[in-house]
């Protein structure tokens, strides 16, 4: 049985994102974390990416920083993880039909089925925001990776599209992230076969909690 994973995501070379709108450094950092989370849920990390994460700076921990601790655990897990094992784990979790598979689509968690009203609502929101799936991409808009990528674009803008206001980011987060992504990440962490992705999901949960709280400050 083939265990290869086809990535349906169009990878954008970094060079084409060179035109950058000026944003605060904290927002650059948020966007970077969304980009990383998006990438890790779109496809398993290859050896290069694992190495890149493993070589990132550790965050300072003073015992009261759950987010920093989770980040550091992810960094260390990236150094210890083998790309083949990561691919197998990703396949078993998100592509397989085994007992521990986790569906990474919002509609599944909100409506109980994929491609239901929550996806339609999301598409309506995206259209209003002037965003759409890239041509040729088969990944659904309510896939974890696509949701994180949307947040990233709202923060940084893209090409001629300027960054969106914090209020817009908050509204999108409240309507399309908060209702299901926490639950989905918890399900991943609780999967017995989740190892690397338990660390990814743990960090994701804590980061999104920070996002929820910080975006509510507007």
């Amino acid at each position: 049985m083939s265990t290869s994973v086809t990535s349906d995501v169009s990878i954008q070379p970094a060079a084409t994102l060179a035109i950058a709108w000026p944003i605060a450094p904290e927002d650059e950092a948020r966007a970077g974390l969304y980009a990383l989370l998006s990438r890790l849920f779109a496809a398993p990390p290859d050896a290069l990416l694992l190495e890149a994460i493993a070589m990132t700076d550790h965050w300072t921990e003073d015992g009261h920083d759950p987010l920093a601790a989770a980040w550091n655990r992810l960094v260390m897990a990236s150094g210890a993880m083998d790309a083949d094992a990561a691919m197998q784990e990703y396949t078993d979790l998100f592509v397989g039909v085994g007992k521990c598979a986790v569906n990474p689509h919002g509609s599944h968690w909100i409506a109980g089925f994929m491609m239901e009203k929550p996806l339609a609502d999301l598409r309506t929101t995206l259209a209003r925001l002037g965003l759409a799936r890239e041509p040729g991409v088969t990944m659904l808009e309510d896939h974890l990776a696509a949701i994180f990528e949307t947040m990233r674009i709202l923060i940084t803008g893209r090409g001629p599209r300027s960054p969106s206001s914090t209020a817009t980011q908050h509204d999108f987060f409240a309507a399309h992230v908060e209702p299901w992504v926490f639950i989905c990440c918890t399900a991943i962490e609780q999967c017995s076969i989740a190892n690397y992705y338990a660390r990814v999901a743990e960090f994701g949960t804590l980061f999104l909690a920070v996002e929820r709280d910080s975006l509510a400050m507007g």
Partner: protein
Amino acid sequence: MSKSPQPNAYASVAPIAHSTDLKRRRFLLAVGVGGAGVAAVATQAMVAPVAATAPLEVAVEGQGYRETEHVRDYYATTRI
């Protein structure tokens, strides 16, 4: 070759941060978001499943169900 529109660095971004925005940014910095180190990884990690385009009609394709060989084999066993 026509130039793509250049972002106006002096518009769109508020020149003076609101106090609530400063509060949000200080909070982010305090919990660790805003430190160095993520940018390089993020650049390498870029994906673009969503793009800023005009509304696009796309065929609805599910990613969840795939008829792999082992599924076809299973179906073969269910045929009377």
